[in-house]
Structure formats: structure tokens, C-alpha cells
């Protein structure tokens, strides 16, 4: 995983509430057995017309949006299924941060494991950022993960929450499995003290 330290980018604005994972990536794209090309399917049902051509009315298809790395969404982003294909699609497309007033729990966990930063801001700050971008659609937002700050085009700086462990993993670009593995002796000790309630291998079919 690439470390995440600071990010400065123009913003793609998609002010829809409750954007669910079926919109982020429809289920018919979940038949892949790898992560390759997921970015092409991001927001597929909004982004493409029935014949597969780009829908010119959708924000991602506007020429000036190309290369923007921050997505500003409505409330409760990422609700619905547990598919990690959702952050894979966002990261595959080129997004590195999503701003919302809240994120669904599983989506947030999945995003953090893929170097995609979920930035939670207050409703008031969200409104101000929307206003800033209305005034200057090419305005840049700056994110500093170490300081946990986000600075709007209009100059307002907000602190955003993130648990210190996820922050450490993002800053260093390390995943969580290594940390978990370092606890193997304790996990084994736990197993020795706690008999398994079920054994799936006890019965074959």
C-alpha cells in the first residue's frame, strides 16, 4: 500500500446522499477474481449509457474532472454491501480521499485498508465546502493526514477524526496483517483456553 501523507487536489462533487455500494460498483462486476480494471466500473450505471458510451451528463465524464483525486459526496457514503470492490473501484479510478458527513462502517474499514482516506466533516463544514466549490469549481482542497486537517479553497481549516492505528498504517503504507501476525503467540494461548464451539471439518457434506 502506498503511504498517504498529504494530498492537494481539485474536487469532484457528487452531492447525493446515501450513495450505496451498488451505485459505486454494480454487482454484475463482482464476478472478477482479481482487482484489475475495477476503476472502469466505478459508478457504472450513472457513468455509462445503455450502449456503453460515456453519459455526458455525469460529472466524472466532464473533461475538467479528469485527474481529480478527491470526491465530495453527500451524507452516509458507502452504505450497503461489504464489497471491497467499492474502494478498489474508487482507488482504481484515481481517487485518494472521499469527503462526507458520515460513512457506512464496513465501507470505512475497507477504504482504510486500501489507502483511500474517508474524511468526515461536520454538516456545517460540508455546506461551506460546497459553497466554496460553487464559487470556484476548480478550487483545491488540501489534506494533511499527520495533522488530521483539511483546508478548503476558501481557507477554512477543519480537523477530521481518524483512529490512531489506521492513521499510522496509512502514513507508513503498511497493512494490518503484519500487526495481527505479531500477536500469534497470544492468539494460540487464547485458543488453548477456549475450546472451539464448532468444527467445520467434523462433517464433510
Amino acid at each position, binding site marked *: 500500500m502506498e503511504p498517504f501523507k498529504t494530498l492537494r487536489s481539485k474536487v469532484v462533487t457528487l452531492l*447525493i*446522499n*446515501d450513495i*450505496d455500494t*451498488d*451505485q459505486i460498483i*454494480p*454487482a*454484475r462486476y*463482482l*464476478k*472478477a*477474481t*482479481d482487482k484489475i480494471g475495477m476503476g472502469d466500473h466505478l459508478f457504472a*450505471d450513472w457513468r455509462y449509457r*445503455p450502449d456503453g458510451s460515456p453519459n455526458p451528463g455525469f460529472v466524472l465524464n466532464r473533461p475538467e474532472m479528469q485527474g481529480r483525486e478527491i470526491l465530495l459526496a*453527500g*451524507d*452516509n457514503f458507502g*452504505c*450497503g*454491501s*461489504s*464489497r*471491497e470492490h467499492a*474502494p478498489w473501484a474508487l482507488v482504481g479510478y484515481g481517487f485518494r480521499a472521499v469527503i462526507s458527513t*458520515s460513512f*457506512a*462502517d*464496513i465501507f470505512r*474499514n*475497507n477504504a482504510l*485498508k*486500501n489507502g483511500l482516506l474517508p474524511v468526515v466533516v461536520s454538516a456545517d463544514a460540508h455546506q461551506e465546502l460546497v459553497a466554496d466549490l460553487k464559487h470556484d469549481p476548480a478550487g483545491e482542497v488540501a489534506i494533511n493526514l499527520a495533522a488530521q486537517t483539511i483546508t478548503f479553497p476558501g481557507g477554512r481549516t477543519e480537523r477530521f477524526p481518524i*483512529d*490512531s*492505528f489506521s492513521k499510522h498504517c496509512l502514513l507508513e503504507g503498511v*497493512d*494490518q*496483517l503484519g*500487526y*495481527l*501476525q505479531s*500477536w*500469534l503467540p*497470544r*492468539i494460540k494461548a*487464547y*485458543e488453548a483456553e*477456549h475450546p*472451539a*464451539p*464448532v*468444527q*467445520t*471439518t*467434523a*462433517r*464433510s*457434506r
Partner: protein
Amino acid sequence: MKPRTLYEKIWDAHVVAQEPDTPAILYIDLHLVHEVTSPQAFQGLRERELSVRRPDKTMATIDHSVPTFPAERLARPITLQDIRDAQAAQQVAQLEANAAAFGVPLLGLDSPSRGIVHVIGPELGLTQPGMTIVCGDSHTSTHGAFGALAFGIGTSEVEHVLAIQSLLQTRSKTMNVRFDGRLRPGVTAKDMILALIAEIGIGGGTGHVIEYSGEAIRALSMEGRMTICNMTIEAGARAGMVAPDDTTFEYLHGRPYAPKGKAWDEAVSRWQKLPTDDGAKFDAEVVIDAGKLEPMITYGTNPSMGIPITAPVPDPAELADPTQRSSVEKALRYMDLQPGKPLLSHPVDVVFIGSCTNSRIEDLRAAAQIVHGRKVAAGVRMLVVPGSEQVRRQAEAEGLDRVFKDAGAEWRTAGCSMCIAMNGDRLEPGQYAVSTNNRNFEGRQGKGGRTMLASPLTAAASAVTGVVTDPRTLI
């Protein structure tokens, strides 16, 4: 000792270690695996040269991308050659190969126990009170009906559990949802959960684990409790739980993986200590009068957009909150519905009885009760898809398949089917479905399809009339 909730007791019993400012290491008792969210996790293990640490705590099955077939046309188990979608076939083959290579037990295409992962876990007795259960699927919350802590995880976490049988987790907040009173006839567990989600909203449970309590919950069968816990994720909550009681124990007794003999008695006495202690505190409380509930149906594009079936579709112009107003406007545009008018009598193209929410034997019996002696209305396609091959056999033994087929419905083999529309069963653009599944998101049941979520009773009633119908008029 401080009084604790059911959630806190299971949490405390499974924390292996916790360092300051770091999530806890939570031990996982059972890991369920399916073909869609596991290939990249197994690939990760290969890249790191790791094995599956506890295959004896892991169970795989095939449910999402497997097609369903008319049951009478398939007297033998499905094979890989029956899956015509090459990508789906490859995904299934990949799980078979991964299970063989890593020694993970698989209830595969040819297994008489195959079915939707959240149907077969309980049915086989793998799901038991007090356990921690995970699966790369948000509807893992279903298993909480047994007083287990069960939640959905992403593929990275699937890899973690395969590798080390533990997860990094932060403790959730707790919410008690109490359903007082008794349900009236024609009102079901599905209506209870749709009413709750309509009340607290699609993000209303975010950060919380919900425990369901109250007279109406106690009166529910395990099937009903599973329906409620299943859709808990649709309110954003990580997990739903019901304290185990005699209903739970009766359901589990004699199931293949349930403890036997002396071990059974010991397990029951352990399980009886799980319910929330008197005086334990929840972070949030919600009370709903179950006696006042009506059959519910959704009009919009997320599960919180539900109304009593006799009520009119909300008028966005009357909503004070501008973001809520624009959400409802957008939903009504997609659904092509008129505000202020009831959904009753709205034409229906497809009725789907199935999914991990409502595909168990009791759901099929409820639907059959309505369909019995009636015909599916002209122009309506009705699919009945049992949640597992075991449910299918039981339904066939009870003659339910005949009831459905005589009425003109399709009786199909088990799978996720039209709930997720990645297996060939799907709506066509513009079609209206009354569906017993869990999500009415745009395109969920097929691109351009329009889903109205409801109970098996309401769905079956709408199938025989061809329009959205209050099941109480047909019971």
C-alpha cells in the same frame, strides 16, 4: 461485576489482546466464505506464502454467482458446465480450487447442503449462541438471531481471518430496539424491520450493534428473528442480535453441527448466561409498538423509504429537510411513482420470493398460504427461490412446490438469485417488482429495475392480483 449487555459479554469473551489507541484483536469462532468476496483474499495468502490457519473454523459455499434453474428440469446437482456465464463459472471454479488447495471444507455445487451462506449456517447448526461469526457479506448480521456476534467484513479482512483467525476491531456502541406488544394478523418480522429502518433511517444504526428485545421479538420464530437481524445492516448497524431462549435452543437441537448429549446440556447452560443483565446500559434505546404495525412496503431506492401499505407515497414538497427532499425526489424519479398516491393497486411485473432475508421454510409456507388455490395474475412472473437445497427438499416434502407451480409460479433451485442479479436472474429495465429481498437500491435487481421491498405475504398477494396488494385482504 458491572451489568453487561449480550454484545458486551460476547465481545469481552473474544478479545485476545488490546493495546492502547489500537483496535482490539478479536477472535473469530466461525468464518463463512463464498465465491464473490474470497478470490482476492486467497490470492493475498498465496502472495504472502501463508496458509489458512484454521480450516476447521472455516466453511465455504457457493451462492451469489450460481444460476438458479427450474427445479423440475434439474433432477441432479448443478455442475460447473451448467453455469453459462464464463466469468461466473470461473469464479466458482476458483473457489473450488482454493478450497482444495487450502484445505477449506466446501459445501459445493454437488452438496445437498448447498445454499445461501446465511441460510445454511443456521440450518446446519454451525451458527450458535455466544459465537463470533464473520463472512465477506454484509448480511452476516443474520446469524445474530441466535445471540451470536455476527458481522460482514471486506476482502482484506477475509484474508486476515483466513491467515490468523482474528480481526482488528473497535468496540461498537449499543442500541436496544424494543418491540412491545403483539403483531396483528398479516403483519410479519419483515414489516417490523422495515418499520424500524423507516423510523431510524438508513444511517440510523451506524456505529452501533442493535439488540432486539420485547414481547414481539420473543414471540417470533427463529426464521422471523433471522429476517430482522438480516436487515439490521440496512439501518447501518454492524450487527443485530437477539438473546437466545428456548425458541433458539429448540431450533438448534439435533442440527448436524449442534452439540450432542452431555455437551448439549453444557452448551445450553452456557448459552443461558448470555442474555443482557438487568441494569445493563445501552447507548441508545428505541421503542416500537408492534401492535400498531401494518404490512410495510418501500416506494424508494433505499430500504428506509418504507411506508405502511395503506399510506400514500410521501410528497417531497412536504419534507422540510432539503437533502431529504432531494433524495425522495430522486428516488421517485427513478421509481416513476407519483407522490401522494398509495402504492396499492400499482401494477407489478415480477414477484420475487427469496434471498437471505426471506427464503426459509416459514417464508415459503407464508407465501404458499396466499397462493394456494389461486393463480399468478396474467403477465406477472413469480419466482420462488428457496434459500438452500435443504429448504427446497423440505418444501417439496410439504407439497409447497406444487402449490407454487399449480399457480403458475417458477419453483427454482437455491441461490441468491434476483436479490443481487449477478447470476442471470434479474429484472428488465423499467420493470416493477415486489420483492422479499433486502435492498431496493437503483439497479440492485437488474439495471433499471424498480424494487418494492415487502414481506412474503405481501409479495404473494401482489403476485396473484397483479397489483400491489394488502395481504390482509386475502388471508
